[in-house]
């Protein structure tokens, strides 16, 4: 499910940074540390505050979902002169109905997740709203794969 994809902007420019970070599933013990790390990295790369904040935000929502719903996962970061691409790939239960999961307010969060302040069913919508391109795919019993792209070259126009 691509949102607003108009050109094949996704992989033809050379990476200036690429790394993959493991995320522990099923626990909040370290929830968010990968996002903090990625945010610090992007800040050091002198990307604009807006770009860094949007990249950190979509990474964080994806990371929290892995901590909440998956067994384990990885967050892959790729930075090129034009884009920040974040992929969150997990092994876990997967999402049976992606359209439903994307709806604002839909959540299967447990009491433990709600106690941490999550489970409003806003995360995936938020990811979609804050990224320039967003794709989600999932297989029941296998896992979920999110791909988010944030463009560096232009200011976010609020699509």
């Amino acid at each position: 499910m691509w949102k607003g994809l108009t050109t094949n902007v996704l992989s033809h420019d050379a990476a200036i940074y690429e790394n993959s970070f493991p995320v522990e599933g099923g626990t909040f013990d370290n929830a968010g540390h990968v996002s903090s790390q990625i945010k610090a990295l992007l800040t050091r790369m002198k990307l604009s505050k807006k770009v860094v904040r949007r990249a950190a935000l979509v990474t964080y929502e994806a990371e929290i979902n892995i901590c909440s719903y998956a067994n384990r996962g990885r967050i892959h970061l790729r930075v090129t002169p034009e884009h920040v691409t974040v992929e969150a790939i997990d092994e876990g239960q997967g999402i049976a109905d992606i359209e439903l999961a994307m709806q604002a307010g839909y959540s299967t969060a447990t009491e433990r997740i709600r106690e941490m302040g999550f489970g409003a069913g806003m995360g995936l919508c938020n990811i979609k709203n804050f990224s320039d391109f967003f794709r989600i795919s999932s297989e029941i019993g296998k896992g979920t794969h999110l791909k988010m792209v944030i463009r560096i070259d232009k200011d976010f126009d609020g699509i």
Partner: protein
Amino acid sequence: MTLREVKDILDAEVLVGHDQLGKEVKTAFGADLMSDVLAFAKAGSLLLTGLTNPQVIRTSDVLDIAAIIMVRGKRPSPETIRLAEELHIPILVTQYILFETAGKLYTKGIVGCVERVDDERAFS
């Protein structure tokens, strides 16, 4: 308004960020739900919340929150404080309830970081 003025207005105790009290703030967002904070809070705002777990700090880091005001006298765990120190995010604790905290700041000129969710999207 500076964080020092915020501290005085709220009669708050500074747990983290004694060295950042000169920081300027103009806007705030209040919620106990991090999901809502992520959707609407803007960079440089105060976060007023009754939650005290480490996710409040992580969320604030991601969003460039200027400082966290913990309301209703709730005190964070040592783990939360340690994380806030590491990420340089000030924590102030006030005995006022969320409504009073927001009201006191509003009267002194702090406004919401978004007014209504239908006339301005917070995606910046």
